[in-house]
């Protein structure tokens, strides 16, 4: 089923969720690895190209995700979730979403701070909008790094929450996002 229902996630929501998860973790790993590459490493140029391109892809996906979130029905939180769990869940999701946009903007600024465009898989050049600010690339770089680690910390919390529901509460929180919950 494409669309969400009040109890289950449709395949579009699930696909976007898991693709985002893959991109977030992949971009973090790639970013960490590439920033330590030596100048003569054969991936020195390709790795950042891929990081930028997949980052733009995640930004586009996240915008689509927010639009879909607005217009589609949402599975309701399970009845036995405690008030703390509900609030913590909402807080983690909101901060994650906010930090993703901090990542998109700061990443874009590192590349475009001196007027250079940022390329999406050599298919499209997105022009620089903000430049001429002293050391913008350094400021954006610091924000990008701090936000990246913060996101990974929240991802760990997010996964811990999902596992808690699955293994301790034995509820359908994780299975309905995996799409294996057949109860409707």
């Amino acid at each position: 089923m494409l669309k969400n229902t009040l109890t289950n996630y449709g395949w579009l929501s699930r696909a976007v969720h898991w693709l985002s998860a893959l991109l977030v973790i992949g971009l973090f790993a790639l970013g960490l690895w590439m920033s330590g590459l030596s100048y003569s490493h054969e991936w020195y140029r390709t790795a950042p190209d891929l990081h930028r391109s997949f980052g733009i892809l995640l930004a586009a996906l996240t915008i689509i995700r927010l639009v879909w979130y607005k217009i589609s029905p949402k599975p309701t939180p399970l009845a036995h979730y405690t008030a703390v769990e509900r609030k913590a869940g909402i807080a983690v999701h909101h901060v994650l979403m906010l930090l993703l946009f901090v990542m998109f903007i700061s990443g874009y600024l590192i590349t475009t701070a001196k007027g250079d465009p940022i390329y999406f898989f050599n298919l499209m050049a997105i022009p620089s909008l903000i430049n001429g600010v002293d050391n913008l690339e350094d400021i954006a770089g610091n924000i990008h790094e701090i936000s990246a680690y913060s996101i990974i910390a929240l991802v760990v919390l997010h996964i811990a929450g999902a596992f808690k529901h699955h293994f301790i509460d034995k509820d359908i929180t994780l299975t309905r996002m995996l799409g294996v919950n057949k109860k409707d």
Partner: protein
Amino acid sequence: MLKTAFNKHSKKILLACAIAASSAITLPAAYADDYEIDTRGAHAFVQFRIKHLGYSWLYGRFNEFEGTFTFDETNPAKNAVNVDINVESLDSMHAERDKHLRGEKFLNTGKFPKAKFVSTEYLPTGAGTADLKGDLTLHGVTKSIVLKVEHIGGGNDPWGGYRNGFEGKVTIKPADFGMDLVKALGESASEVELFLSVEGIRSKALKAKK
């Protein structure tokens, strides 16, 4: 009453004259040949170039710096230069590269944001050329270097000022300043050429003298 007032007034004039006279006398003659580098009008450049892979020259510059020089046409021994550079203002026309060059592997501007050159000796070598010895502080290391200086020209400018301009060149080894560029960028990065191209405007004190 009138007399007293007049006396007071004349005393003031005398005092003013005395101050003016004393300041004129104590004004050091050296000020007369002092120039301020025209960074505000951007008639001055601190640039560098380094080989990329050994295949081409990569140029960059430091956008923010200030300095003064003394240029005495009759007594070159007095000639001197002082330049303070904001290393963080490094600009190689590529944001990501600038970010790397400011990083810990290279200039480490977080720890060493300033560079400076203070000349110690000016030795004329020919018509309009000289060796300018001095101390360059970069990356927290101070080393003696010799700039090959050429006097480009000088004279009145069209706006009531008086100017002189020079270009100095020196090749430094980043390793001497504690930066291992060879390890990071290869053998061709063992040397960096620095260019100090400046135009100075003579300080106003001279105009009063002439």
